[in-house]
């Protein structure tokens, strides 16, 4: 009940995403779909850019939503409620995850439809491949919200030099993950099943020309099994989320 109330409150607070941004976004994507036969690369590039923009916009919106609670003092009202830190954070992240899923799905679907309409499904882009990339995108993006907000919550536990502390924590997280945790996680999770992207153009018909057998095989994402990397990222995000919740309760004075 408490979580549901917080979730609904967040949903109302973030209604701009659904009421104003969403219709505009859908209209733009429909515009790309209707114009790509005349302006192929422009439409294709812009819809690809949207995928990147959504990634950063939603992640920053999630942390901005929390920071705004402190700025507007509504945090004092929120924290005076008998709820734990994880209730508050999870409600915020849940709503932003929905935004992330809905918007990115439309963006990916648009790119897929343009590619399919222009080159046909079997050439280099397959629906199953797009779904796979989209799922990885979600798997990287949603945990990023927990991680992005961590330096801000940490800095709130201190009375001075908050921006400096937030920057320092962000750098430590970045270096710590990529230099130490990721290589370690890759070893630990090496038992996970093989998952790579291999897109082959062999035997396909590309722009009216049949490709000779075994002409080209592109391992698009990585030639290594990427699942250990994703698993490490996910575990890292879970640990950071626990840290977020504990520090949120400790550093409410902001």
């Amino acid at each position, binding site marked *: *009940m*408490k979580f*549901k*109330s917080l979730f609904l*409150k967040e949903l*109302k*607070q973030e209604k701009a995403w659904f009421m104003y941004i969403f219709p505009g976004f859908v209209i733009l994507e429909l515009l790309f779909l209707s114009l790509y036969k005349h302006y192929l690369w422009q439409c294709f590039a812009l819809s690809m850019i949207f995928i990147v923009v959504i990634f950063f916009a939603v992640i920053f919106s999630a942390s901005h939503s929390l920071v705004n609670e402190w700025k507007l*003092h*509504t*945090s*004092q*009202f929120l*924290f*005076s*409620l*008998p*709820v*734990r*830190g994880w209730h508050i954070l999870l409600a915020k992240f849940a709503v932003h995850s929905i935004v992330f899923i809905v918007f990115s799905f439309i963006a990916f679907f648009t790119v897929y439809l343009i590619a399919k309409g222009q080159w046909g499904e079997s050439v280099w882009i397959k629906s199953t491949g797009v779904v796979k990339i989209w799922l990885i995108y979600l798997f990287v993006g949603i945990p990023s919200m927990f991680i992005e907000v961590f330096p801000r919550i940490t800095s709130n536990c201190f*009375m*001075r030099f908050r921006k400096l502390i937030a920057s320092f924590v962000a750098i430590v997280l970045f270096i710590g993950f990529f230099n130490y945790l990721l290589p370690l996680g890759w070893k630990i999770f090496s038992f996970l099943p093989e998952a790579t992207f291999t897109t082959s153009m062999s035997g396909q018909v590309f722009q009216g020309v049949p490709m000779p057998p075994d002409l080209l095989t592109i391992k698009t994402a990585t030639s290594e099994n990427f699942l250990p990397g994703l698993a490490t990222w996910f575990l890292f995000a879970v640990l950071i989320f626990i840290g977020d919740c504990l520090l949120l*309760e*400790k550093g*409410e*004075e902001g």
Partner: protein
Amino acid sequence: MGLVLDLKNVTKKYPGVDALKDFSLSLDRGKIVGLLGPNGSGKTTLMKLIMGFIKPQKGEITVLDGVPNPMIREKIAYVSELDVLYPWMTVREILDFTSNFYRDWEKGKESELLQLLAIEQDKKIGTFSYGMRTRVRVMLALCRKPELVLLDDPFSGIDLVSRAKVQDALLKTYHYKEQSIVLATHIIDEAEPLFDEIVFIEKGQINLQGKADDLREKYSKNITDIYKEVFK
């Protein structure tokens, strides 16, 4: 009758300021206590410590037989001195939202308090004046029946009419001997008749403490005049 609040040798420092210094205070249940002191005396810090928003560097705090933590807030109603409500919510929405978190929420009190405090429930909080928004904040506390009510400067920056309405609502909804109210303020005139006990606080330390009637008798003055003398 046990203690509602027990603070032992509490020290809270901010950079360059000692907000509370070796502060000790025990309050009995079922009383209305006035926490009086000028701006910057440590009243708000004390409230925040009781709520568990901040932690002391030193000392022990016991609230309703427990340590301040998020779950003990189910038994406490806190009215912040700050404008803490969501401006995009209507009064109806904030009432519905807040009521979901408390088992002691008295639905029947809502309409009575809306009328008493002259609040329109369909209006957005962001459209209200500061005085009206204060009334809404107080209303959220009074719609409940908590063991402890903490009111942090509810009379500050609001007009006479709002002050009178808040005071009236406080008196009408107070559960005598069951509830404890700690009212921090530096505006004493209107609030004086409410107090059972008074704690004068200055620079993070207790200056004077006692039952309101005893203080009046001892100094042969009303609380406002004692306040002026204590803080002159």
